[in-house]
């Protein structure tokens, strides 16, 4: 960074090296059996409204919260995995505001004394490895769920379901260290993978992760120097983005929007916006959010958490980076394959169940083919029975099918899985479709289909034969193609080549 001050007039347009400054606030549901402050089951998604509530999470007068030990353990795991310092004393606090989904009129969260602070997560940045600093990690409860009813012609009202009220959340706040929507997406992917590896988070549960993103565009170096943005370049907070792709889209849209405003010389007010997933745009929201006074004070019904000693005893499972290194080391995976395979816990586990067949073959087929086919069908890796995939790998390994046939079989099996939840065996499929590679025998006698096809091809293509004999070796390729057609791709091109060459020589 240059030491010379950036002199630009106040109403300046955009400079080519202006920086995008992004910070994230991520809320994740912890995968405990019960809610944060009561014993209601957290498995509410398939159940009718208000069937997972009790006096405590319903906010009935006189009820009192009790802290779920497991939730605290999970929070400590997250704090440690993100390289944070664990607070000697953490404290729950009340955040007071009035909203229909907040049945007590306050949310129990952590404010002055969060459970973990000052950590980091290393990610693949736009210019190499990058350390994203974590400001804090704290615990809080989820509010209920609102369903807005009514329409233009009928009076509007709201329906409330408190099944979600009280679900344990962990909030992770980053410093504004991210510099592009891509980096933000990579950070989220790495965070998600880390949380899965820790066993504290189930990313398949709908709504289990929500992101608030804040973004501004500043002259290069300004933010690092000043510690905040330029006066006319406000910071926008985009609230409640509920998908990973949504985060990248929202940020991309917002950058364009802000850049346009800057080019026109307009002042950007700090504001809160909402991301409309279906339209891919951010829209302005009531700026009342910014004026809220939450009147935080320590939760008088709960006692502090002094859990440093406990935190020290916690042994973390293998995390993504360590697993990546191990995959390269133990299985000989390429760095790219290793990164892909360890990007999701279930994928890494899947790989390790089938890698014994042939580690590199398995890595290639999973990372380069299977994943693509799954994405195309909008399927997750958990839908693929590892044994079935093993069978396919074995066939590939032993050379019983060509790569092309292998892909064909894979697609058929996946389609079956998607439709019915089960599929035939890989071998059965290969046999059913007659895709097994025909191994050519070296003798000229017997019922050898390759031999048969070769003889037929020679008989049918006298011009090519003549061309070959005249010295044009490429005519052989044409004949090989004919034989491949006749054997429906099941012969090995190398073998066909040899057989034809032999026959032509003799013929």
């Amino acid at each position, binding site marked *: 960074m240059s030491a010379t001050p950036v002199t630009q007039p106040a109403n300046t347009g955009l400079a080519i090296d202006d920086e995008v400054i992004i910070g994230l606030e991520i809320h994740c549901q912890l995968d405990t059996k019960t809610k944060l402050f009561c014993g209601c089951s957290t498995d509410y998604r398939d159940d009718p409204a208000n069937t997972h509530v009790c006096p405590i999470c319903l906010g009935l007068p006189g009820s009192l919260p009790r802290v779920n030990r497991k939730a605290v353990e999970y929070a400590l795991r997250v704090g440690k995995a993100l390289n944070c310092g664990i607070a000697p004393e953490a404290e729950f606090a009340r955040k*007071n505001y009035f909203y229909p989904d907040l049945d007590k009129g306050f949310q129990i969260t952590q404010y002055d004394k969060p459970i973990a602070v000052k950590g980091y997560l290393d990610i693949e940045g736009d210019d190499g490895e990058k350390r994203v600093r974590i400001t804090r990690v704290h615990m809080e409860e989820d509010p209920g769920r609102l369903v807005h009813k009514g329409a233009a012609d009928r009076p509007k009202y709201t329906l409330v379901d408190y099944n979600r009220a009280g679900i344990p959340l962990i909030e992770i706040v980053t410093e504004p260290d991210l510099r592009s929507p891509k980096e933000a997406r990579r950070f989220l992917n790495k965070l998600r993978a880390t949380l899965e590896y820790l066993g504290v988070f189930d990313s398949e549960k709908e709504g289990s992760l929500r992101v608030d993103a804040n973004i501004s565009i500043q002259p290069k170096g300004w933010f690092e120097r000043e510690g905040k943005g330029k006066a006319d370049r406000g910071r926008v907070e985009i609230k409640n983005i509920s998908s990973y792709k949504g985060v990248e889209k929202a940020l991309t849209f917002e950058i364009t929007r802000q850049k346009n405003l800057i080019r026109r010389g307009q002042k950007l007010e700090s504001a809160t916006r909402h991301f409309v997933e279906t339209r891919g745009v951010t829209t302005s929201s009531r700026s009342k959010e910014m004026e809220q006074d939450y009147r935080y004070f320590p939760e008088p019904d709960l006692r502090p958490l002094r859990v440093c000693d406990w935190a020290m005893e916690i042994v973390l499972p293998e995390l993504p980076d360590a697993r990546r290194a191990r995959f390269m080391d133990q299985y000989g995976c390429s760095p790219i394959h290793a990164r892909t395979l360890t990007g999701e816990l279930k994928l890494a586990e899947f790989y390790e169940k089938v890698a014994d067949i042939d580690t590199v073959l398995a890595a290639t087929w999973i990372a380069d083919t299977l994943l693509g086919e799954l994405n195309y069908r909008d399927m997750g890796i958990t839908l693929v029975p590892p044994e079935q995939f093993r069978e396919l790998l074995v066939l590939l390994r032993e050379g019983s099918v060509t790569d092309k046939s292998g892909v064909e079989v894979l697609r058929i099996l996946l389609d079956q899985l998607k439709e019915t939840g089960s599929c035939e065996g890989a071998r059965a499929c290969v046999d059913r479709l007659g895709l097994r590679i025909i191994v050519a025998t070296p003798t000229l006698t017997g019922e050898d289909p390759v031999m048969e096809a070769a003889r037929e091809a020679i008989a049918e293509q006298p011009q090519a034969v003549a061309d070959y004999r005249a010295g044009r070796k490429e005519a052989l390729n044409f004949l090989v193609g004919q034989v491949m057609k006749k054997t429906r791709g099941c012969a090995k091109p190398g073998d066909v080549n040899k057989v034809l060459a032999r026959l032509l020589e003799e013929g």
Partner: protein
Amino acid sequence: MTSVTFSPDDRYNAFITTLSEAETGPGRLSDIPVAVKDNISTRGIPTTCASRILTGYIPPYDAHVVTLLKREGAAIVGKTNMDEFGMGTTTENSAFGPTLNPADPTRVPGGSSGGSAAAVAAGMVRMAIGTDTGGSIRCPAAFCGIVGLKPTYGRVSRYGLIAYANSLEQIGPMARNVEDVSLLMEVLTVHDTRDSTTIACPYRHTPDPTIRGLKIGVPEEFFGEGVDPRVASVVWEAITRLEAQGAEIVTCRMPSMAFALAAYYVTCTSEASSNLARFDGVRYGPQADTRRTWHESFQDRRREGFGTEVRRRIMLGTFALSSGYYGKYYAKAQAARQQVRNDFLRLFRTVDVIAGPTMPTVAFRLGEKTDPLSMYLSDILTVPANLAGVPAISVPCGTSEGLPVGLQVMGQWFRDEKVIDVAAACEQGVSV
């Protein structure tokens, strides 16, 4: 299961709800009619906190103390009147009209557990439970001439107590004599893990009036300017009688008294402003009007449902917690609280209990106290025990102008037994 019939002549308006047939069973409280203050949740019985905002609310669960009463066979015969949400010193702040003092029906019974005190004093029930946030058991006990104990904070579960000020309040026993208060205390102190602010410390004790050798501290501040000299005189006589029974009286000082009342009111209003935010008419209480917007409906509900004193305290508390003022009020109040605790710690190094008048005056006339601040000031002698969490009892020790006067005895944390003993000694002294 048998039942007790209850059809009282409630001329003092002690009750909000009565049960004409109350179930009773085997146990230490078998066949005993017990009244429960109406801020304590009772399953299937309306629970109002004497407020319009809870009209029609029927809790689907019992408070822990109610479960304990039932377990010992008590006949819960009704829910008693109170100052709305516990906010008051006279039981005049009730949506159901004031309760009258059986000792003199032109006067208040004290508050906020005035209904419980009146029911006991009038002989309608043998025992009652009340709640004490800043003196709300002890004040009515003193004004009505009965015994009322605020236990050590954390000794009785608050699960089911509709919160006013969580860090200050406790449920406690009220009766006409120390023995019954002690019996009720035994029933109430079974530990409850649902309240994370409690410590398991069951009370098992027979009151013992022998106080020979006991050191009783009497702080100067308890006999200061604001205390009616006639009340002071009655209380001094009682203390002198304790001395005659063998106790040693030690005068002492509690400088933190200067801040105690302010610390109390900042703390309780702050906590209340948060605790009372849940009454939005969506899940219970008078229905929120879905034809209006959320904030409009919420404001209307609160203006119509909460009385003036409640609204005043909510606003004070909101202000004390608000951005820019938290440091000046709430944070300072907690520091002041620490000083009160420190004073008690210091005093208890040399004395066993601390004694003085419960209230600075005898019961006021109905309608006499109209100015909020002047009402708050009458809590000056009772709030220190709530701020520190120490046990405190009020026991009748004489009369002034024909009206009951209460002696307050405070003890060390978790030494409620000692407080009971001194009260028993006082009781003995009075009857002699």
